[in-house]
């Protein structure tokens, strides 16, 4: 029955766009994570909290002022400050410590951020109302695409390109790359490594916040919204190779698209080999595991991930 079903191009295109959207959001989260991991050798579990704070701050400002742009600017600014504060007050003291300390401190930060969000914004979620122009649909031939989806994809790609230029073409980027492959050497060459760490942490936090405020008009801002997506962002970081922004980009897209397509097409695909009923039972479980299976497979052959920056200590 499922085998001979004609391909529904509209569905496929819309799922591919969904996958691209998820992939780019993951990239925004993972690129900050991978830099913090790679350069400072610091595990930041609370990166998801930045994602949540970004969404909440933007929602509050938009609801108060009615201007989306003000919301975005203030949200990014507040995350730069929060990110810098976390680095300055807490993370900085622990770079030399065991990873166990990083896990604990950032786990504590999650509890603090989540509860503070609960105190400030209450237990219910918050919506970000979109201006008319972003809330419509775009027609391309016979395809109808929600315009906000294109906004997310466009913004994600834009940040990706900006980050690429920053990292490959600017002096700051050169220092970041150098820091990721040999920290001691960078320090020895007279670079103020503390300031570099502060900047990277703040930028990472801002990018996570940007991802949060981008998705909030669709899912609304809610407490703990970052705790789930952050795990997939970790998977992206590991598969891409810790410290590699390029790796994070490719693996984010692969994982975003694989996850989305798996959820919609795996039962059809399994239907080719199994009975329909078996396929329908197995598909949801298998599609939930697929991303992790991909990660495990890649790690069996390349424990350092797809694009590990050379010289990076484990």
């Amino acid at each position, binding site marked *: 029955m499922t085998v001979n079903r004609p391909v529904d191009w509209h569905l496929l295109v819309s799922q591919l766009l969904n996958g691209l959207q998820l992939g780019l959001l993951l990239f925004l989260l993972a690129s900050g994570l991978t830099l913090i991991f790679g350069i400072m050798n610091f595990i930041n579990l609370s990166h998801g909290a930045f994602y949540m704070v970004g969404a909440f701050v933007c929602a509050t400002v938009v609801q108060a002022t009615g201007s989306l742009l003000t919301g975005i600017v203030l949200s990014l600014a507040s995350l730069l400050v929060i990110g810098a504060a976390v680095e300055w007050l807490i993370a900085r003291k622990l770079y030399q410590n065991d990873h166990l300390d990083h896990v604990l401190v950032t786990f504590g930060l999650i509890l603090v951020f989540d509860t503070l969000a609960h105190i400030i914004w209450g237990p219910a979620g918050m919506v970000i109302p979109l201006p008319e122009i972003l809330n419509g649909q775009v027609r391309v031939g016979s395809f109808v695409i929600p315009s906000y989806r294109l906004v997310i994809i466009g913004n994600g790609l834009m940040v990706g390109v900006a980050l690429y230029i920053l990292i490959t073409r600017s002096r700051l980027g050169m220092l970041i790359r150098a820091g990721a492959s040999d920290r001691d050497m960078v320090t020895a060459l007279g670079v103020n490594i503390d300031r570099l760490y502060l900047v990277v942490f703040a930028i990472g936090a801002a990018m996570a916040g940007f991802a949060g405020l981008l998705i909030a008009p669709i899912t609304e801002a809610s407490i703990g919204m970052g705790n789930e997506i952050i795990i997939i962002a970790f998977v992206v970081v590991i598969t891409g190779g810790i410290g590699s922004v390029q790796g994070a980009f490719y693996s984010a897209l692969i994982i975003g698209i694989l996850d989305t397509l798996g959820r919609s097409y795996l039962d059809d695909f399994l239907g080719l080999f199994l009975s329909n009923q078996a396929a329908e039972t197995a598909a949801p479980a298998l599609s*939930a595991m697929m991303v992790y299976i991909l990660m495990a497979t890649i*790690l069996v052959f390349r424990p350092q991930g797809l694009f590990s920056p050379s010289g990076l200590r484990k």
Partner: protein
Amino acid sequence: MFKFLENLPARVYLAVTALLAVAPLLVTLGSQPFYLDLLTRILILAIAAVSLNLIIGFGGMISLGHAAFIGIGAYCVGIPAHYDIFNGFIHLGLAISCSAAFALITGAISLRTHGLYFIMITLAFAQMLYFTFVSLDEYGADDGLIIYQRSDFNGLLNLENPTTLYYTVLVTLLGLLYLMHRLVHARFGRVIIGCKHNEKRMQALGFDTYRYKLTCYVISGTICGIAGFFLGNFTNFISPEMMDWTHSGELIFMIVIGGTAGIFGPVVGTAFFLLLEEMLSGLTQYWQLIFGLVLILLVVFGKGGVHGLLVWADTRQTAQAQPENDS
């Protein structure tokens, strides 16, 4: 013969154990059955914490996915019970073999990596299991399953009786602590501790460290699966939420409060964690904020947890008693 009683941590831990042994009596006298529940919960999670401490405290393998084993153990009670199989030997056997198998497969892959990668991979595997159970509609998906009858050991043990359940868990925990003591003082334990400090050196000495670490990981996962078996029986309810990674984080929190350097530390840490949670959550709905702050301060300022504190107090006391040895 009682030479070990000369040091302070040992005396404190012995006192705690004695207190736990008579606790049901005190609870019954005070007619506060609620506290027996709390104590049972502490003991069950203490089993999980002790098992986690074997790999974190002694092996230096920081796993952020240990809650998955609790979930496996609990589902090994819930799924057979769903099909009206209540035989405890089957439940326990399944819990042990399934958690050992999961530990073997994920451990074999995870242990190919180190440091950051290991932490995130264990986390990812646990989430994989979490989402798998969330998508299994047959077993209640997100909502989980209610277990209508506790594991039945052919009349050997009546787990429906809260006091019997309490003592079963207590005896298991004490047996486990003895096993840990023997394990970390045996050659196997020495190799594991050696790997934590310098794995390359252990390899140079001719040890196949990968095998030792994998064995250690499987032992730890299996024991944690047993904790899950008890937890499923205790709560009469299972859901994927038990495997959520925040619970793995809490387990790490427990062993760090207690101190990772000793065998008994995790037990004290678990008790501290659950009692504090009980107290604070009665006080304010925002208790997690205080928890988070305690955790941050503990890491930034305090070292070694309760065990570290006791050892410190002990050395200070000894030093005061024998000032001439100070120079």
